[in-house]
């Protein structure tokens, strides 16, 4: 039996019951990566020696009675390469950080280690998490394991592809405008973006700080809930982290949506959406109704203005956040300079890729005097309208349902030539980040090309449990789920 096909929780149980040792799990995972990563390129760095050593240590701790409350102790995990791992190269898939070894662990990495996790590697992504295809990585593209002619989505494409290819039992991604949910949809796995402030961003290399949130990508809803149990929690080192009473997301894993009120924004089924995806989402709506939920279409305010507002705000924050990469403190430095200004300019021009440069310039423009009000301030007002629209919707509904993306995974090489067209693919995901809401993407079918279709369930602030319950209930109706 190929034990890498087990879900994370199944593997955790087998380790706990001593049916499989941590070393066996780690070795099987490394072997799988060795065999299939030549085809998919999910990883930038594979931690072979480190994972084997850590596996031995975790096994001993389990035998000594540690990690009793951790269902994922000993299970290998993949971490997106924009999350700091102490002493392990963390590149953001950029030349400018090609040799950066963080001096500390991100809060989520500490939490994973406290739960007995074994980090198996760092996954590929769009450079600085800016992109929807994982084609902008300095370290090369990732292929979609469901069809290698297609992109895995992005920016957490390596994490989603690793889970889809059984090269990871579960993975961490980050989501600023859909970067967990969209690749999860494209690769046919389950990914969750928590409410802003649920998971500490300490040690996450910042893209757009008011929108960034770390979350799980896994083989099913239960695994996502179990991972979220581990990585959530208040952290004083992230001042936007919100202290909550009870996290315990796995408690929400119940097959019961009777009486649940589910709203479908009409604007999420309109022009621009692939017909096969529309059918698939409507079929999911019927499934929910059959299970006793009340499903209704409604008008969500300002759907069409989410993308422009998102790209103004995200680019503005990126231009500020990425000013720290200057060739002085860490990472790449140009070899050819006369003075300090040239160190800055040449390092950045040689170290950043096209999409990152483009967004830094858009950001500099929308923040510049003369344009600040027309763009940045305007976008913050549009954000207020979008947030108010969701507030109104959640007075009536418990959960919102829609597609994750307007198409299935595009073919490799089709997206980057027209950046605006690529940005439009984020239509159903970015408003969730602007409003700070939680959302989950899970598989709900395949199109005629055999590519996975993802559906998205959006919850109210701190409404993770409702979307987990709805997603879990839906998952029970799908054949072939793990």
């Amino acid at each position: 039996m190929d034990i890498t096909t087990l879900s994370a929780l199944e593997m955790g149980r087998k380790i706990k019951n001593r049916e499989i040792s941590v070393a066996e799990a780690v070795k099987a995972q490394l072997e799988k990566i060795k065999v299939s990563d030549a085809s998919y390129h999910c990883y930038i760095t594979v931690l072979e020696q480190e994972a084997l050593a850590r596996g031995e240590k975790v096994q001993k701790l389990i035998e000594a009675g540690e990690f009793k409350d951790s269902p994922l102790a000993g299970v290998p995990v993949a971490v997106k390469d924009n999350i700091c791992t102490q002493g392990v190269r963390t590149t953001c898939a950029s030349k400018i950080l090609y040799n950066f070894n963080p001096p500390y662990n991100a809060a989520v990495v500490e939490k994973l280690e406290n739960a007995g996790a074994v980090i198996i590697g760092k996954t590929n992504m769009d450079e600085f998490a800016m992109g929807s295809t994982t084609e902008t990585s300095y370290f090369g593209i990732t292929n979609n394991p469901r069809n290698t002619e297609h992109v895995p989505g992005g920016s957490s494409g390596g994490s989603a592809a690793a889970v889809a290819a059984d090269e990871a039992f579960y993975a961490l991604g980050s989501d600023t405008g859909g970067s967990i949910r969209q690749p999860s949809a494209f690769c046919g796995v389950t990914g969750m973006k928590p409410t802003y402030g649920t998971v500490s961003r300490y040690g996450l290399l910042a893209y757009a700080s008011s929108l960034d949130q770390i979350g799980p990508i896994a083989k099913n809803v239960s695994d996502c809930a179990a991972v979220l149990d581990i990585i959530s929690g208040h952290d004083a080192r992230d001042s936007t982290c919100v202290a909550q009473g009870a996290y315990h997301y796995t408690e929400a894993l119940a097959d019961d949506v009777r009486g649940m009120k589910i709203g479908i924004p009409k604007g999420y089924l309109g022009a621009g959406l692939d017909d096969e995806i529309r059918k698939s989402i409507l079929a999911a709506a019927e499934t929910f109704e059959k299970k006793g939920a009340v499903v209704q279409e409604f008008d969500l305010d300002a759907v069409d203005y989410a993308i422009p507002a998102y790209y103004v705000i995200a680019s503005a924050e990126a231009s500020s956040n990425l000013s720290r990469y200057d060739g002085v403190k860490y990472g790449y430095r140009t070899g050819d300079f006369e003075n300090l200004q040239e160190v800055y300019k040449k390092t950045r021009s040689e170290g950043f890729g096209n999409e990152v440069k483009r967004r830094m310039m858009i950001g500099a423009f929308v923040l510049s005097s003369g344009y600040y009000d027309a763009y940045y301030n305007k976008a913050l007002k549009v954000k207020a309208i979008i947030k108010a629209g969701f507030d109104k919707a959640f007075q009536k509904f418990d959960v919102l349902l829609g597609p994750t993306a307007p198409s299935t995974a595009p073919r490799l090489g089709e997206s980057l030539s027209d950046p605006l067209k690529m940005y439009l693919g984020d239509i159903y995901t970015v408003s969730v980040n602007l409003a700070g809401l939680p959302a989950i993407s899970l598989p709900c079918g395949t199109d005629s090309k055999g590519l996975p279709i993802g559906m998205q369930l959006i919850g109210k602030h701190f409404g993770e449990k409702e979307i987990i319950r709805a997603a879990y209930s839906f998952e029970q109706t799908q054949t072939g789920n793990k």
Partner: protein
Amino acid sequence: MTITDETIHYVAALAKLELSGEEKEKAKKDLGSILAYMDTMNELDTEHIEPMSHVFPIRNVFREDVVANGPDRDILLSNAPASKDGCFMVPKTVE
């Protein structure tokens, strides 16, 4: 919106980037179409709307003002492209 050479020169300077001629032309075209699309926000009447920077009504977070500097200097400097005598090293900036 038409993006002029001056605008590209200005934003590149703000972003501390040096663009090749080809990159400048591409940036002009891309920024033009992206900003034109961003202009669709003007269809929304936002006159009486307050700009929202944070989605939750949270207050500022205060802490005691104590030194809690993390990893020591040598570890931090080990990532620097160039260092000397416990400091980051850069080209001479003051004559």
